[in-house]
């Protein structure tokens, strides 16, 4: 009998920002450390950090003008980033074993966000996402991922 050990990959949390620095959605599935500041301040700090990193990349790269920030990894977690051409930003924190969450983020945007937020007549742009369908579909999608 072969005992196969599955690498347990974790998803920590997700932030969604629009292009006006507004945080539209935040959900944490596994979070072991709070930032020590209020959630509102944390959203602004996260957005500011992402904005600075994008500016850094576009000016540091001598060979191309496209920024294309994909993410960063530290010793404990990996921040995956996805931005749509309209300036919508998705930030997903996972553990370091995850190779690329780009597909997952693209799915969250094109299948979940577009269907349950953009096409929702009650959802106003720039406001916190209230849609129960979006929340439950997002949760079940995240649970269904091979990295949980």
């Amino acid at each position: 009998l072969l005992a196969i050990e599955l690498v347990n990959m974790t998803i920590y949390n997700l932030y969604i920002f629009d292009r006006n620095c507004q945080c539209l959605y935040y959900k944490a599935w596994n979070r072991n450390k709070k930032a020590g500041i209020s959630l509102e301040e944390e959203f602004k700090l996260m957005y500011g950090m992402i904005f600075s990193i994008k500016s850094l990349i576009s000016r540091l790269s001598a060979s191309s003008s496209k920024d294309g920030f994909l993410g960063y990894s530290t010793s404990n977690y990996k921040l995956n980033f996805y931005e749509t051409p309209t300036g919508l930003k998705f930030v997903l924190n996972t553990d370091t074993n995850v190779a690329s969450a780009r597909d997952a983020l693209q799915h969250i945007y094109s299948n979940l966000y577009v269907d349950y937020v953009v096409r929702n007549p009650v959802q106003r742009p720039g406001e916190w996402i209230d849609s129960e369908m979006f929340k439950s579909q997002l949760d079940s999608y995240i649970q269904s991922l091979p990295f949980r």
Partner: protein
Amino acid sequence: MSSVISVYIISKAGGLIFSHDQPSPTAEVVARFPHQQGLVLEEVDRNVVVKFGEQHGIQVGYSLVAINGQPVSNRCLPSGENAAQYLNSPDNYPLSLKFSRLKTSINERIMLLSMFHSIYAISVKLSPENKSSGIQCLEAETFKLHCLQTVTGVKFIVIADRKQGSVDDLLKKIYELYADYVLKNPFYALDMPIRCELFNVNLIKLLEAESRSSYLTGTTTA
């Protein structure tokens, strides 16, 4: 062909104390303009930079390097005439213009790397997991930025091609060179810009050896 693009060292206060670029070909484009068309230029610092109107291979961010073979420096032609004004008068056309992407100036780099120093600290604060280090690898579409922070707070940064695998060995070796040729140099003051000839020489040797080994094995260093 080395996949390392640049090496930087940041002091524990966040100031850039060392920077090294591997020689790389700069993209240059020469295009003939029969009349004024489409290009929107702006003066940024002491350069004339393309702001809008990508054409003939000239991209946004390229700087005007020469008009009709005459070099443009400090926004002016050798005759002293302002380059932007020259381009605005239709009598001067047709023209042959040369554009190229200039390397970021050292002042800009100092600023950008101080920004990275702060971003590093923020990434620790925003970590969802306990006891996280700062950013060890920042991924962009065209390059990867690797960072090693030592226990004393000095950061070693290597910007390499996306293809490059693990740069940890290289970062550790650069740290060793720093310890040997910079810290043990009696004339070097801590946190000051590094001006140690032996460090430069040995760093270049290390980068050459690294690029040769990755070329020979046909794969990136493991």
